[in-house]
C-alpha cells in the first residue's frame, strides 16, 4: 500500500502563533508496523504537532504527506477519511449522547450513511454490532446505554479510544491515552495498543509522558523540545542521549544541545 513512500511524512512542518514558533521545521517519516513515541517536556509542541498532522491547525509552513500525497491543504475531515485517526488528550466526546451512539457515529462516518435521512438510526444492525465490538475491546460494553457525560474520567478516556478504533484508521494517533486513568484501568488501553501494534500493518503515533509506558511500547522515540525535533532513534539510545537528558529530564550536562 505504501510503495516507496512512507505512510506519513512531515517536511519542515512549522506553525507560528504571532512571534512564537510552536512547532519549528519538524521533518519526520513514519513507517507502518511501528510505534513512534513522541516525548518532550510540557509546552514542547507535541500536541500542536499532532494538530498539524491531523489537520486541526493549519500549518504556517512545511508539508504533511500521506502515502506521498500532500494533504497539507486538506481539512481535518478529509484527512480522517484518508485514514488518519486521532484520540484526543482532553476528552472530546458527545456528552449528551449515549456511549454507544458516540462510537456508532464514528463507525457511521466511514460508511457514508450520514446523509441517509429516511431510515431509522437503530435499524442499521451491522453498524451497531461493530460499535459494540469496539466497546467490548475497551471493556465498556456494559455501559453502552449511559450518557457519555455520566462516565467516570477513566471510562471517558476508554470511550475516546473506542471511537478511534471505530474509525479503523491506518494511522493511530494517541495523545496521552492513559492520562488521569486509575492504575487498574491503564492495562486495558496499553494491551489494546499492543494488540494494534502486533497487527504489523498500522502506523501508531503516541504522545506519552510516562517513561515506563514509552519503554514498553515504542519502537522508536522522537523528542521535541521548544518545537524542534532534537532526537530521533531507538528508545534506549534516545533516552540515554545527553540531548534528552537535558531537554526532557531537565538535567544539564556540559555541552548542551541547541534549544
Amino acid at each position, binding site marked *: 500500500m505504501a510503495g516507496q513512500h512512507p505512510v506519513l511524512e512531515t517536511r519542515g512542518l512549522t506553525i507560528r502563533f504571532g512571534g512564537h514558533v510552536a512547532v519549528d521545521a519538524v521533518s519526520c517519516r513514519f513507517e507502518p508496523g511501528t510505534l513512534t513515541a513522541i516525548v518532550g517536556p510540557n509546552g514542547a509542541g507535541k500536541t500542536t504537532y499532532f494538530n498539524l498532522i*491531523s489537520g*486541526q491547525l493549519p500549518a504556517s509552513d512545511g508539508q504533511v504527506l500521506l502515502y506521498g500525497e500532500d494533504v497539507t491543504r486538506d*481539512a*481535518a*475531515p478529509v484527512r*480522517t*477519511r484518508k485514514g488518519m485517526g*486521532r484520540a*484526543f488528550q482532553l476528552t*472530546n*466526546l*458527545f*456528552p*449528551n*449522547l449515549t456511549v454507544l*451512539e458516540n462510537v*456508532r*457515529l*464514528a463507525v*457511521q*462516518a*466511514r460508511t457514508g*450513511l*450520514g*446523509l*441517509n*435521512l*429516511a*431510515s*431509522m*438510526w*437503530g435499524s*442499521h444492525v451491522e453498524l451497531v454490532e461493530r460499535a459494540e465490538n469496539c466497546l467490548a475491546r475497551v471493556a465498556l460494553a456494559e455501559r453502552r446505554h449511559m450518557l457519555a457525560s455520566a462516565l467516570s474520567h477513566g471510562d471517558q478516556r476508554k470511550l475516546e479510544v473506542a*471511537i478511534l478504533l471505530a*474509525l479503523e484508521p491506518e494511522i493511530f494517533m494517541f495523545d496521552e491515552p492513559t492520562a488521569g486513568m486509575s492504575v487498574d484501568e491503564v492495562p486495558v488501553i496499553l494491551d489494546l495498543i499492543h494488540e494494534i501494534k502486533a497487527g504489523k500493518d498500522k502506523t501508531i503515533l503516541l504522545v506519552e509522558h510516562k517513561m515506563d509506558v514509552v519503554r514498553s511500547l515504542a519502537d522508536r522515540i522522537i523528542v521535541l523540545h521548544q518545537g524542534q525535533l532534537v532526537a530521533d532513534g531507538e528508545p534506549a539510545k534516545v533516552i540515554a542521549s545527553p540531548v534528552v537528558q537535558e531537554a526532557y529530564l531537565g538535567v544539564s550536562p556540559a555541552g548542551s544541545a541547541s534549544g
Partner: protein
Amino acid sequence: MIASLLSADFPRSRILAVALLAVFAGLALAPFLFPGTRPLDVAAKVCVFILLVASYDLLLGYTGIVSFAHTMFFGIGGYGVAIALSRMEVGWGAIAVGTAAAVLLSLALSFLIGLFSLRVKAIFFAMITLAVASFFAILASQLSNVTGGEDGITFRVPELLRPAYRVLEQPLLGVTVGGRFVTYYLVFGASLVLFVALLRVVNSPFGRVLQAIRENEFRAEALGYRIVVYRTLANCLGALVATLAGVLYALWLRYTGPNTTLDFAIMIDILLMVVIGGMGTMYGAVIGATIFVVAQNYLQEAMKAVSGALKGVPVLPDLFHPDRWLLWFGVLFVLSVYYFPAGIVGQLRARAALKK
C-alpha cells in the same frame, strides 16, 4: 407499526404520552369537538405552528443553529400561494405552481445563507439571518404591487376549499361538511405527515450527526463529517418545512400579509414555543405550540372573566384587564423557563427516567 411511524422515538413519559394523545385526538376531531369558527381557527393555527416550531427545532434543538430567518421562509410559502392564486386562474394548478416556486426560492435562499455564513461563529450567523429576514420583510412591504404591501393579499381558493361549498348536503354528526371542513383536514393531514417525516429525519443516521454537531462540532469534524454539508442540509430542510407550513396557513386564512407571516413577533413566538416545549425533542413542538397558541387566544377571555369577577376590588380588576394579557403571558413564560429549564418535554422525560 407505531414504532416505525414514530421512528422508535417514544414519548418516554406516561404524562407526556397522555398529553400527546390528547392533543392528537383534539386536533384530529376538532371540527366535531369544538364547533364554531373561532375554535377551528385556533385548531388550524395549532397544526400549522406545531409544524413550524418542529422545523425550527430541527435547527435550534437538534443542530444548534440559531436562525432568525425562519419566519421569512414561512412568509415565502404564504406569499407564494397568495401571489399565484391572485394572479393565475384559481385552482389546484395555481396552488401547485405557487408552492413549487416558494419551495424553490426558499431552498435557494437557505442554501445561500447556509454556505455564506455557516462557517462563521454562531452569533454572526444569527445576525446574518436577522439581517436577511428584516430585508425580506421590508421588501415585502415595499413591493406593494406584487405583495400588497402592508395590506397583504386576500385571495380566492379552489371551490372545494371555499366556506360556502358543501360536500355533504346533510350535516355529519351535527357538523357541516363543507369547504372549511375540507381545508381543516387538509391542514391537519399535511401537518401530521410532515411532522412524522421530521420525526424520522431527527432519528435517522443523518439526525444523529446533527446532534453530534450540536454536541461537539470539533469532534464531529474529526470523525470525518463535513459539518458545512450537514448544517446546510439541515438549514434547507428546516426552510422547506417552514415554507410548506406557510402555504398551509395561507390556504387556511385565504390571506397572506406581513402580520401573519413575516412579523418579527412571530419569530419570537416560535422561539418561545420551542423553549417552553423543550428543545431537541420534536414533541416539545407539539406541547409548546399547543399551549402557546391556545393561551394566546383564550388567555384574554379568561382574564376578562377574572376581571369581571373582581369588580369593586381596588387595583385587581385593572391588573387582570384583558389588555394586560401580554404581561401575564410574560409571567407564565418566565415561570415555565424557571421551573422547566429543559422545557416541558425535557422535564417530563427526566422525571420519568428518575422513577425507573
